């Protein structure tokens, strides 16, 4: 007689036992006092148990998977370091894209870790609380793996060493920083909509696909490795994003207008911030994968279009100004690179003018705009460089009160005119780069009137001094080393020396 088999729980049951019923209804304290954050935004939740976990992942399985990924990642990184992987990249100019990523994005991963930990405490429903706790750990892991990966480049290239310090101070890094501060200082449901849905679901492919393919095309195996290691987490985060939206919309009809307003806001904020990625794809990769415009068409117009069609059954519509963002995909990378070219003296990475070959690529990819509006700009600067009169903008730029980017964007439909918008609040005038940014301000003027605008802070005397040299010191940027054009930089000299040494060995 065979012994009776031990009963094994099926996956769903096991999952339920390990994730549900772990909390209780409080009796000495009011639930609203224990969970003060999840009601003030006006989102109405009638039944938290209706939450469907997108991934039925328990903590024990989570540790196991992540541990395995971690071992693989560090094995690849070790071999990259031992084989001098930095010599295998397409060109040292490429590293400047990584500088922007480390100083701009990696600190956001850490902020995401902190804020998901906060949500993992403060959401009343146990399902989303567990999801937020796991994502909090993911984000900490992403920050760590990125720092480990990039620390290798820090041994050989300038501009990396002060990344956490720079993130809190540098004028253009205030763009990603203020974006995330805005999300973290909002309530939990707005944060979920901002980060989990708008950023990680709607726009994430625009960041990760180009960034990781760009790294692969340019021989940066270290970055590709952390990208792959993060990818399975990202899939989980995306699913959390869509689940949160559906949950809010299914719980109560009053939630729709609130959610719609957040979707409009965070789509626009994400679009402006991703302009940095646009510039990286079109100007900073020595070997290019696809243009920003092509990426926008595939990942927003097509994929985003299908998503919002699906969500229309809840009454949610395509984000406001999506048509304008699509129009801007023809311009944003050129306009952003022009900003950094003329403010290279205050940038923590190197800049350059596109070569003839690169301009031919841009003409082909942007037949409607490049030759007419942007090629002449670069040709003028090239002529000036040839005469020894390299074009620097020595005045500080006007910044948008909302996105904090220099107000360098043109009117929809007229690329020869800068778009200026302004409004008044409490007796003060505020300026914006677009209707999208102006709307965001007007919905929450109390919040955005407190913006820490880097240019105004310099004028108020809060950034180390009034001269460029003082401000660079306060940024911890080494003048003549971390900033200015690639040509003539210590990075270039070093790279050229390595390349000629390799030729000598080979020849």
């Amino acid at each position, binding site marked *: 007689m065979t012994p009776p088999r031990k009963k094994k729980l099926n996956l769903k049951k096991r999952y339920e036992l390990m994730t549900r019923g772990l909390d209780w209804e409080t009796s000495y304290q009011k639930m609203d006092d224990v969970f003060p954050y999840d009601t003030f935004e006006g989102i109405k939740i009638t039944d938290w148990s209706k939450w469907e976990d997108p991934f039925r992942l328990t903590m024990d399985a989570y540790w196991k998977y992540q541990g395995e990924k971690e071992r693989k990642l560090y094995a690849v990184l070790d071999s990259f370091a031992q084989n001098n992987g930095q010599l295998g990249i397409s060109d040292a100019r490429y590293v400047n894209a990584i500088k922007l990523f480390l100083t701009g994005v990696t600190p956001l991963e850490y902020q995401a870790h902190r804020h998901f930990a906060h949500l993992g405490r403060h959401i009343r429903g146990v399902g989303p609380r567990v999801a937020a706790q796991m994502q909090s750990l993911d984000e900490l892991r992403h920050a760590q793996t990125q720092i480990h990966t990039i620390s290798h480049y820090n041994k050989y290239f300038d501009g990396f060493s002060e990344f956490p310090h720079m993130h809190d101070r540098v004028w253009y890094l205030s763009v990603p920083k203020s974006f995330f501060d805005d999300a973290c200082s909002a309530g939990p449901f707005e944060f979920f909509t901002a980060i989990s849905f708008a950023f990680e679901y709607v726009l994430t492919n625009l960041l990760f696909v180009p960034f990781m393919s760009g790294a692969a095309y340019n021989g940066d195996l270290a970055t590709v490795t952390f990208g792959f290691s993060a990818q399975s987490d990202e899939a989980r985060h995306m699913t959390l994003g869509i689940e949160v939206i559906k949950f809010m919309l299914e719980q109560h009809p009053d939630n729709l207008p609130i959610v719609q307003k957040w979707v409009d806001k965070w789509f626009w904020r994400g679009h402006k911030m991703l302009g940095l990625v646009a510039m990286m794809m079109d100007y900073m990769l020595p070997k290019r994968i696809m243009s920003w415009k092509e990426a926008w068409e595939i990942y927003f117009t097509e994929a985003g279009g299908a998503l919002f069609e699906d969500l229309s059954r809840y009454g949610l519509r395509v984000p406001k100004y999506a048509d304008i963002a699509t129009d801007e995909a023809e311009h944003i990378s050129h306009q952003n690179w022009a900003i950094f070219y003329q403010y290279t003296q205050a940038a923590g990475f190197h800049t350059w003018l596109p070569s003839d070959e690169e301009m031919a690529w841009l003409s082909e990819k942007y037949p409607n705009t490049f030759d007419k*509006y942007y090629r002449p700009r670069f040709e003028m600067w090239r002529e000036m460089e040839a005469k020894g*009169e390299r074009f620097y903008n020595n005045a500080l730029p*006007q910044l948008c009160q909302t996105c904090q980017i220099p107000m360098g964007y043109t009117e929809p439909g007229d690329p020869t005119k800068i778009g200026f918008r302004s409004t008044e609040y*409490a007796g003060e005038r505020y300026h914006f780069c677009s209707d999208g940014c102006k709307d965001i301000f007007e919905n929450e003027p109390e919040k955005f009137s407190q913006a820490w605008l880097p*240019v105004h802070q310099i004028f108020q005397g809060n950034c180390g001094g009034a001269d460029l040299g003082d401000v660079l010191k306060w940024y911890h940027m080494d003048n003549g080393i971390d900033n200015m054009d690639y040509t003539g930089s210590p990075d270039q000299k070093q790279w050229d020396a390595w390349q000629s040494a390799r030729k000598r060995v080979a020849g």
Partner: protein
Amino acid sequence: MAVVALKPGYADAVEIRDRRENFHGNQVVYLHWEEHLSFCAATAFPLPPDMPFGALTEQLIPQYYGMHPDFASLDWNQVEWKINGKPATPDMSKSLAENGVDHKTLIAFRTPGLNGYKGSCS
């Protein structure tokens, strides 16, 4: 619109960072040369309100915009001005304040006939 905030009285505790009082007697003024977008955005300056408007055309604009190839042909008598979006005829001898320039004012100028490198608005 009512403020959505967890803390009661949030709106009253707001501290606007860029009030004029925070600029040590100066006010922020923005300058913009239309149809010359090689200057990527309008430029910002902390200026005393009693500075004569003429100091813009005599000092500030030549210093910060003078490197543009169009600048040598610029005729100030032809220039069209806009202050906060409205056409204006500034009196060069009078102060910024007397010309209606206050904190965070945008002064735009257009130079008919000069519209950027090879007419490209760059």
